[in-house]
């Protein structure tokens, strides 16, 4: 009896397609990305972790990259798919620059291009396993949007991926306002990232904060957040718990 794993039943009707495989599950993944609009542009934060399942395997993964002159892309999910997306965008920006005609792709155009890519892959049941955050400034207009692996896309004043949606967005809904200063924006992002560090098991304490304004992109050097573990509930976590766990 042949016990080798085979994904095609013997009477497969797939024909030549049967030889290539589709994305089934991710391998090396990044966790949340959080971003918000502030006075001069967009601020985005992501940690530098690349998890291999439950192992926090890689700790220097840059999950935010500048795209062209006007955009910044942050990604969570499968790291190799993020790298593939960067290659697509590299080619897109290259051809855009080659026109050399005073027109350039802004963040809105890049976001929509990515939406098309993600949605078309989803339709072929071979998704790029990422949730993307695309922010930028062009001609004074700030833009912040997100696209998921199934092609769901929208723009907002603050966005997050993965766990960030559950832990960071509520904080942002309460405390975000128009025309945040740079310092206030960073403080707000750090507050979100600290909560994620405490509560998301795939978070690592090494993060970068990126800023994009009309002038351009700056991505900070990696740094760590101060944490406090001496809360009495942490000291004796099982105290009030009933049962064996």
């Amino acid at each position, binding site marked *: 009896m042949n016990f080798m794993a085979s994904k095609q039943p013997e009477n497969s009707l797939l024909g030549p397609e049967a030889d290539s495989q589709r994305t089934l599950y991710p391998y090396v993944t990044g966790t949340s990305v959080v971003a918000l609009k502030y006075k001069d542009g967009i601020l985005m934060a992501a940690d530098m972790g690349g998890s291999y399942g439950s192992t926090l395997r890689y700790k220097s993964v840059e999950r935010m990259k500048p795209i062209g002159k006007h955009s910044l892309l942050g990604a969570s999910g499968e790291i190799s798919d993020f790298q593939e997306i960067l290659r697509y965008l590299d080619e897109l920006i290259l051809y855009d620059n080659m*026109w050399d*005609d*005073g*027109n*350039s*792709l*802004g963040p*809105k*155009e890049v976001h*929509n*291009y990515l939406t*098309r890519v993600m949605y078309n892959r989803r339709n072929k049941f071979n998704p790029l396993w990422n949730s993307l955050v695309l922010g930028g400034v062009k001609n004074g207009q700030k833009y912040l949007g997100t696209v998921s692996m199934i092609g769901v896309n929208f723009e907002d004043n603050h966005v997050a991926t993965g766990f960030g949606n559950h832990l960071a967005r509520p904080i942002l809904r309460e405390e975000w306002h128009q025309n945040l200063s740079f310092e206030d924006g960073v403080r707000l992002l750090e507050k979100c990232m600290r909560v994620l560090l405490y509560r998301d098991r795939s978070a690592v304490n090494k993060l970068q904060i990126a800023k994009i304004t009309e002038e351009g992109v700056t991505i900070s050097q990696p740094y760590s957040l101060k944490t406090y573990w001496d809360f009495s509930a942490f000291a004796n976590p099982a105290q009030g718990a009933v049962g064996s766990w």
Partner: protein
Amino acid sequence: MFRNQYDTDVTTWSPAGRLFQVEYAMEAVKQGSAAIGLRSKTHVVLGCVNKANSELSSHQKKIFKVDDHIGVAISGLTADGRVLSRYMRNECINYSFTYESPLPVGRLVVQLADKAQVCTQRSWKRPYGVGLLVAGLDESGAHLYYNCPSGNYFEYQAFAIGSRSQAAKTYLERRFENFVDSPRDDLVKDALMAIRETLQGEALKSSICTVAVVGVGEPFHILDQGTVQQMIDAFEIAGEQEVPATDPDAAAGQEAASEQGAAADEGVAPMDI
């Protein structure tokens, strides 16, 4: 231009380095009814003469909306023009769908020119027999381009193509320096005056011409006959003083141009103009 042994095929060079089939295609543009275009910093106006074959028939459509921010006026084989307009509309709509942003007119024009060039280098094709005046807006402002059957394209402040276009060109050459800062309505008036020049004394009526405008905050649209007639009436009376001055110039300019045209044929390839 006379028949010769190098003009059967578009892929045959003449010893003087000319492709006669391409030049013949450009002749087709010159035989079509006139189309003119002019622009300011914020608006572009297209106009054309619409002569119907007979009183019973309707006139041909020569101005096409390509997208909200781009329009085109054609001269020559209108069937070829329709096909190219369909291509342009397709390109615009695909770009809009992918990028949620209007296709920059400068890029569309290059794609159009490359499409025309292909037809000058395949033995089983023929060049498109239509000249296109492409009017559009992009990030860097208002633009007017002329696309040639040869695959060349040029940007213009103002231009005219088709039969008797030299008269319009002469008028535009006199006035073009003022166009950059012209308000929209003055630009339309100048377009109508330029069209009138090509009519050689025949009365300018809104039933024989079409005018279209595109500008910042104004999507491309063709002006309706009523509006056009109003504008004609508004300046026709004022224009009477100008008429004696322009006519002799226009007549003289035309004669000189046609002489030069005949002499030039034996010399420089017109594709490079």
